[in-house]
């Protein structure tokens, strides 16, 4: 955990509640109080109706693989030691898509439509990254 070599995100005012929740192993999405639209990733306004009255709401963390790739060559720091790895867009039950890795699944077994659930990678003290694995 101490020598985590992969890049960490720059936490912004809009994304801080998301990362704070990840540290508690909760996956949050934004929901507009004015029009009900659910959105991911965090923004300062509802992109559908421009309302600034956007609240954080928990996601069940379940969904399906919408599309994916398997990386065999990369120079990305920390990732070149884990080749091959899977990048995927996961369609959550709440109707939004999130970007993540599919972990603990043979890359050859990943397919469009695969049911997945969230799991958290505790990368350092107070910081966890949401990943997905077979449900």
């Amino acid at each position, binding site marked *: 955990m101490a020598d985590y070599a992969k890049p960490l995100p720059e936490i912004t005012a809009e994304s801080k509640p998301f990362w704070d929740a990840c540290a508690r192993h909760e996956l949050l999405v934004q929901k507009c109080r004015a029009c009900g639209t659910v959105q991911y990733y965090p923004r300062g306004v509802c992109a559908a109706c421009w309302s600034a009255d956007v609240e954080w709401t928990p996601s069940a963390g379940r969904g399906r693989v*919408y599309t994916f*790739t398997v990386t065999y060559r990369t*120079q*990305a720091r920390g990732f070149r030691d*884990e080749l091959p790895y899977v*990048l995927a*867009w996961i369609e959550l039950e709440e109707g939004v*898509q999130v970007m*993540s890795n599919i972990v603990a699944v043979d890359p050859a077994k990943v397919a469009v439509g695969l049911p997945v659930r969230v799991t958290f990678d505790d990368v350092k003290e107070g910081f966890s*990254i949401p990943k997905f694995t077979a449900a």
Partner: protein
Amino acid sequence: MATKTLRDKYCIVGVGETEYSRGSGRTTRAMAVEAVRKAILDAGLRASDVDGMLDYQGGDSTFAPHVAPDLGIRLNFYMDVVGGGSSTEALVGLAMGAIETGMCNTVAIYRSMNGYSEFRIGGTGARAAQPVRGMDLAQVPFGMRSAGQTFAFTFMRHMHEYGTTSEQVAHVKVAHSKHASQNPKAVQKERVTVQDVVGSRWIVKPLHLLDCCLETDNATCLIVTSAERARDLRARPIYVMGVAGRVSKPRVDFHWAHGPISRVAGYYAKDIVFGQAGIRPEDVHVTGSYDAFTFTTMLQLEEYGFCKKGEGGAYVSSGIIELGGKRPNNTSGGHLCEGYTHGMSMVIENVRQLRGTVDDTCPGAAEGKHTHDYSVGKCRQVKDAEITMNLGWAMPATGSALIMRR
């Protein structure tokens, strides 16, 4: 609503380029100066005739205020634009706009990059030192840094929805390698087979090594001026019929969530560019569809209506896009084989196709005399090419287009 158009009022009058290499041993400044100088000479102009300059880059090149002085050019207009693919066509439109307003008369557009020896795609070389910002939450912590990783989701989904295969899109590389074998400038001149492509190693599944373009050191330049000015210049004027610049899907980021994911920006650009030109896809003789990867060519040809949506795989594997076929694509070999220039080389190639002076090995090439023998090492001039179309790609969600005629 009627489309506003400047059809046939502006021309490309000069083109220039440096060697396509993997190790230029020069600065982007020196290369840019060479490409701009060659384009000015190609047009039969002098430094004092050029008073506008546009360039595009991503923190990897030299700005116009350092290129113009090396050539003794005094500028009435210049702008350095951030961007890669899709910029060429967009900047042709901006140049036309700058001239139309009276800000300047003649614009040089250049792109200069050491895309192999200095700034490589995917965060190697000098780019590795650049800070991690932007879509951090969505991409970088999960190991997504390269264009192949970003774009290939769309191809994977296209395969899922339409049954498109790796073998079908491999034909794009096969066709472009055929074209590059007639191009003395090409970095990779060997013809390849479908089996060579699908048998090459994975880079980002579903992309094999030979599905990916060739990182290259190179500079390129186009000169844009009014049709009126173009009439008494050296080269045959090539007229701009229509242009669309960086047209985007409803969301540029997270475009898949406002999809469909397998739809690309040409879906929105086609009405603008065909509307201005007053033609339809079947009127186009040669295409230059951006081939950062084999499948980007396929997706764009499909979206602009050269075939039906979902039938791009069948279209690119039918022989239509090869020299000798009905509508050849990227006759220079494109980014997959000639070299990667962020789009400008494919516009240069189409200008030469329309002039009839493609620089192949035909003995009379410079005078426009071609054999139209498309066997290895011979001709790459398309017979009687009158209308060409360039399809510029920044990413699935953003693209540009340019229709030209002779």
